[in-house]
């Protein structure tokens, strides 16, 4: 249990992790997440689920190195055992046959949108996917997204692949073509989710986002993950992580996510020093 079956780089600072967690794979659904803890000193890291296979008991996570803990996780090897894998946590994404769904994934958000898109497709929906990244080499799961979507649109910020622009540009184009869209799911950086919601609001299309605030226990006990939705405080871990994007106070979320930036820097520098004075780039390559 909790053994690493596979861990490899998909792109710079983006890693694919496969874990042997049979019980969790029998239970987890799209939209839910797990919490990992590497060792005694480790923090509790919430992670979206990319995919799972109840038959083999293998759970797939794609994660980006954004701080000390994830950078450390990326240095582990096949066969290593994590101290804890807790889950599934959170409320599963509400699935039904909406009709035509647009799944928007940005950056590392393509990983959880993959699971959502796959499940929406299995539920009988027509799935149009829009994925984007800063640059071509950071774009993940293109093949997987292509095979499960009825249509796949791609953008990169630097124009190295697909449309030169943002996922919201593709979404705006799509909606302007009067394609009838019944449901939109958007997962990615908070600024992206905010932008998607701004695009879809005038069209009145239900837009669900998956939020990733800072969490500690992730079972409703601590309240670290509180977000304002429709003017009310919600706990993303037990009330979410999915919320109606048109109701979310994204600006507050952005500020709350930045709460420990100073400490993250300290932890990061200490970690690289321990690795032998390597720079961030040195480890990432």
């Amino acid at each position, binding site marked *: 249990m909790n053994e690493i079956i596979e861990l490899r780089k998909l792109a710079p600072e983006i890693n694919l992790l496969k874990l042997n967690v049979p019980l969790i794979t029998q239970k987890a659904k799209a939209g839910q997440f797990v919490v990992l803890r590497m060792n005694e000193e480790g923090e509790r890291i919430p992670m979206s689920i990319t995919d799972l296979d109840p038959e083999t008991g293998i759970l797939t996570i794609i994660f980006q190195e954004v701080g000390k803990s994830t950078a450390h996780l990326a240095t582990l090897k096949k066969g290593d055992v994590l101290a804890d894998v*807790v889950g599934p946590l959170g409320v599963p994404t509400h699935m039904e046959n909406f009709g035509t769904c647009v799944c928007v994934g940005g950056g590392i958000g393509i990983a959880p949108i993959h699971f959502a898109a796959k499940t929406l497709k299995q539920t009988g929906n027509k799935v149009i996917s829009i994925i984007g990244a800063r640059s071509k080499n950071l774009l993940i799961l293109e093949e997987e997204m292509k095979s499960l979507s009825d249509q796949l649109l791609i953008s990169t910020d630097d124009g190295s692949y697909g449309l030169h622009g943002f996922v919201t540009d593709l979404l705006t184009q799509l909606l302007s073509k009067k394609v009838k869209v019944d449901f939109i799911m958007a997962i990615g950086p908070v600024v992206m989710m905010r932008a998607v919601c701004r695009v879809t609001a005038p069209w009145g299309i239900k837009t669900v986002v998956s939020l990733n605030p800072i969490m500690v226990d992730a*079972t409703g006990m*601590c309240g670290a993950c509180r977000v304002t939705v429709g003017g009310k405080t919600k706990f993303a871990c037990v009330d979410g992580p999915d919320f109606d994007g048109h109701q979310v106070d994204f600006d507050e979320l952005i500020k709350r996510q930045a709460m420990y930036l100073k*400490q993250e820097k300290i932890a990061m520098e*200490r970690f690289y020093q321990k690795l032998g004075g390597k720079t961030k780039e040195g480890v990432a390559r």
Partner: protein
Amino acid sequence: MNTKERLKIPRQKMPEQSPKERIKNFKEVPFGLTPELAMKEAQRCLQCKKTVCIDGCPVEINIPEFIRLIAEGDFTEAAKELKKTNSLPAICGRVCPQEDQCEKVCTLAKKYEPVAIGNLERFAADYEREQGKVEIPQIAPPTGKKVAIVGSGPAGLTLAGDLIKLGHQVTIFEALHKTGGVLVYGIPEFRLPKSIVQAEVDYLAKLGVEIKTSFVIGMLWSIDELFKNGYHVVFIGTGAGLPNFMHIPGENLNGIYSANEYLTRSNLMKAYSFPEYDTPIFSGKNVAVLGGGNTAMDSVRTALRLGAENAYIIYRRSRKEMPARIDEIHHAEQEGVQFNFLTTPIKYNGNADGWVTSMECLKMKLGEPDASGRRRPVPIEGSNYTMEVDTVVVAIGNSSNPLVPQTTPGLEVNKWGNIVADPETGRTSREGVWAGGDIVTGGATVILAAGAGKKAAKDIHRYLESL
């Protein structure tokens, strides 16, 4: 020794770290009684015929008897006597509100200071553990019956100890990665060293209790799935685990924590050892803790140890109404905590980055008694003032965590979401399901939760025998 001589002995003080020294560390504040001090204190007990102290104890420890054994120097026997009714004496000796229970009704308390029952309980339990004299009790032959305990706090640990001795197979399911519930995530090291909780857990494991951590009942398995997996009985002791907020403007600004989060970061995740431990905590200069209970005292004293220059308690009633243990209030005062009574925040102000910078407060006065019998605080109009704060800890209680009730059809809960259970047996509306501790009573004490575990154990045993 006659009564007169006994009455002459003053209450023995437990040696402790000086306030100046201890606010720089997280080590336990009192050092505990020495054997000499303990025997002297034990001699103060008059061995009254009418044992009012026992009536004052939620688990009815035979107090005169264990104290008599300490007076005679038979410390191990004293510990055994304690454990007849209380599985967690080292913990309860430290965290019970004795001044409201056994020590309140102690005969001596009328004219003198009461016998230091809590300190003696702690002494005997510590002695037994430190001397390695904890005996493995006889375990009844296996009954083949399986019991699932959800939550490893004081209720669950007590229940596990009682049922395993009766020959039942016991599994504890704990959502967090460490066993002990509020004893490990909530109560700080300086009040309850985690090694003591670990010793209790290790003891249960030695008796054969199976412990599954990082296992969230209500998510990974439901109560019904526990039955499907062969458990005959389920006990829910999940605690009061959903922090209350005041729902006033600005409450989601950075720097504003629930006490659960603040204490969990510090205690369970060891954020006070950041960056050796990965979990960070923001340790501000001006820290305001809202509330007057033990959790508030734990939070404000944690803030001091994390380096606060000003650590405030903001409490809407007066000192007299504070529900915290007297010892904790004393300790907080000694350590330089500033108490702002009859005060309530109404609004937080923040900067452009979303950090709290100040708090607008209102002064209160005490009005007529409310449902709890305490005088209700009434705001004084126009008394608004602003205080500078960079950290706020909201310690105004918890509601019940909905994960288990939501996923358990037929389990009756009251309007606050607490599970409805028979106070004498812990039986719920669902066949085979018992509950006890804070999930039933709402936020209460360790000893009441342990007592609920004790009562449930008796009833569950009867039930299992009837199957």
